[in-house]
């Protein structure tokens, strides 16, 4: 990383934190379906994806560690909500399966595009991770797509549930693409093309699919992206999640668990 100047490092850290925090929190949420899914096969699928997400987050925290941050366990298990950089979308409780599924669909398509973009990053360690995990994420989008299609074209109830969940989730999903103060640095250093490009490509991939399944994407005049997460402002759901997640670790953070 010797081509990095201090600005580049700060920008890379900012990017890594938001990606890793998103993955950790959505992985944690998806794991809450264990034992509670609408059918056993979905319990198992959500658990698999949760394991992938949490594994990916650990890998990204490892990169942060290489850039001088504390080790992954410490970073993940000792920060408070206001030190997290995840978007609000991932923080919400799992709710009903319709919400969890639409969240999974919107989030994972964004993740897939992000990793595709990062596969060519000048930050080679990150590019390697992106190339490695693209394969995993492909299965996540395949899963999301299959289920959204089935339920959006299934019974009257499932169609209306999918539509309502999409309406409720859309603005939260737009919050994924909240820009940070390092957008220009990331672009000029060739690390990442930026949130605006990501958002455009994401819309190009999800909107035609949703329309194909007969779902209406909310009218553009109503779009109001939910921002704040990237700057440490969160919903009231995050701190309770973190308190639960760190409950045992906090008994003695220096102990070997």
């Amino acid at each position, binding site marked *: 990383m010797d081509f990095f100047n201090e600005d580049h490092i700060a920008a890379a850290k900012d990017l890594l934190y938001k990606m890793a925090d998103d993955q950790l929190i959505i992985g944690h949420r998806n794991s809450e379906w264990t034992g*509670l899914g*609408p059918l056993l096969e979905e319990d198992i699928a959500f658990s698999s994806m949760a394991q992938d997400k949490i594994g990916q987050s650990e890998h990204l925290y490892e990169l942060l560690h290489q850039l001088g941050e504390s080790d992954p366990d410490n970073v993940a298990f000792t920060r408070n909500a206001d030190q997290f950089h995840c978007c609000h979308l991932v923080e919400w409780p799992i709710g009903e399966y319709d919400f969890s599924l639409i969240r999974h669909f919107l989030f994972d398509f964004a993740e897939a595009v992000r990793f595709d973009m990062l596969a060519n990053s000048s930050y080679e360690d990150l590019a390697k991770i992106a190339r490695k995990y693209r394969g995993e994420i492909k299965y996540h989008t395949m899963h999301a797509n299959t289920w959204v299609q089935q339920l959006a074209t299934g019974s009257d109830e499932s169609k209306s549930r999918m539509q309502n969940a999409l309406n409720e989730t859309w603005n939260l999903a737009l919050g994924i693409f909240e820009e940070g103060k390092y957008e220009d640095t990331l672009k000029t250093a060739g690390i990442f093309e930026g949130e605006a490009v990501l958002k455009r490509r994401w819309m190009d991939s999800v909107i035609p699919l949703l329309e194909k399944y007969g779902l209406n994407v909310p009218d553009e005049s109503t779009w109001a992206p939910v921002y704040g997460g990237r700057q440490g402002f969160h919903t009231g759901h995050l701190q309770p999640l973190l308190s639960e997640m760190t409950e045992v670790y906090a008994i003695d953070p220096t102990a070997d668990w």
Partner: protein
Amino acid sequence: MYGNAYIDPDKAPNSLVADEDPVKLAEFEARIAAGEKIEPQDWMPKEYRKQLIRMIEQHAHSEIIGALPEGTWITRAPGFRRKLALMAKVQDEVGHAQLLYSAAETLGKSREQMINDLITGKSKYSNIFNYPAETWADSAVIAWLVDAGAIINQTTNARGSYGPYVRALERICYEESFHLKYGHDNVVHLATGTKKQREMVQAALHRWWPPLMHFFGPADKISVHSEVLMKWKVKMASNDEMRQQFLDMYVPKIWDLELTLPDPELRKDEETGRWIYTEPDWEEFKRVINGDGPCNAERLAVRRMAEEKGRWVRRAILGEKAKYVKPFA
């Protein structure tokens, strides 16, 4: 005991096979005696089918209900290593339920029916999951010792006669052996860790000992029926034999960690090679099986809630015209 074959000992001795074709019955019993496996399309006595459905179904229910006490600790597991391992472990258990429901379905009862019988309380599951996992150390003790008990129970049943169940069990035991390693590693870390960690695991072990002693069930009453179940290779070992095997394999390992067990009588009789212990409280066992344990109501309520919340999903993917088809194997 994850699944249990049981015939009321007071039932008339010849009632089991009273209306079966004697020639077919003799052929069936000869195949089993020769070590052959019975497959779903083969002829089998009605009582054989009934006992197997009961046993496999209870086992499947135990897997999904068992996911609940441990599942609570997924969101609390300390550190990435434990969090990822516990998620994978509990996911395996749910996968076992899926395998087992499929095996039971080959005998003609649908998954939907089995789950309905579970949530209405008609069908049982392993009693041990009616106890709470109060701390992280409880989840470690469960992963080590409940899974150890399960392995003894399942490797025994894997020598049974019904093909689909035996094949499911072989795969399950393979995965369970990883769970046991995870659980053991977790308990060792706590037992050799800080004072607080050691206290946690010691307390958890004392809490879980009575339910672990109950795990294999009370001593079998010897009856004509249990002999038939043994002959048909539905029941492969007595409850006491399995309990002895468990004590023999794990008590020394627990003592090696300088942890104590809440039974002053517990010791191995070197002459007979048998373990001596205080007789477990079978009244409590019965009470808990019949619904009056610390977590029975909660476990079933959670399962019922999951079934109800997921109904619209299952309806939407099945469609109006879907009908039940029994799987082949």
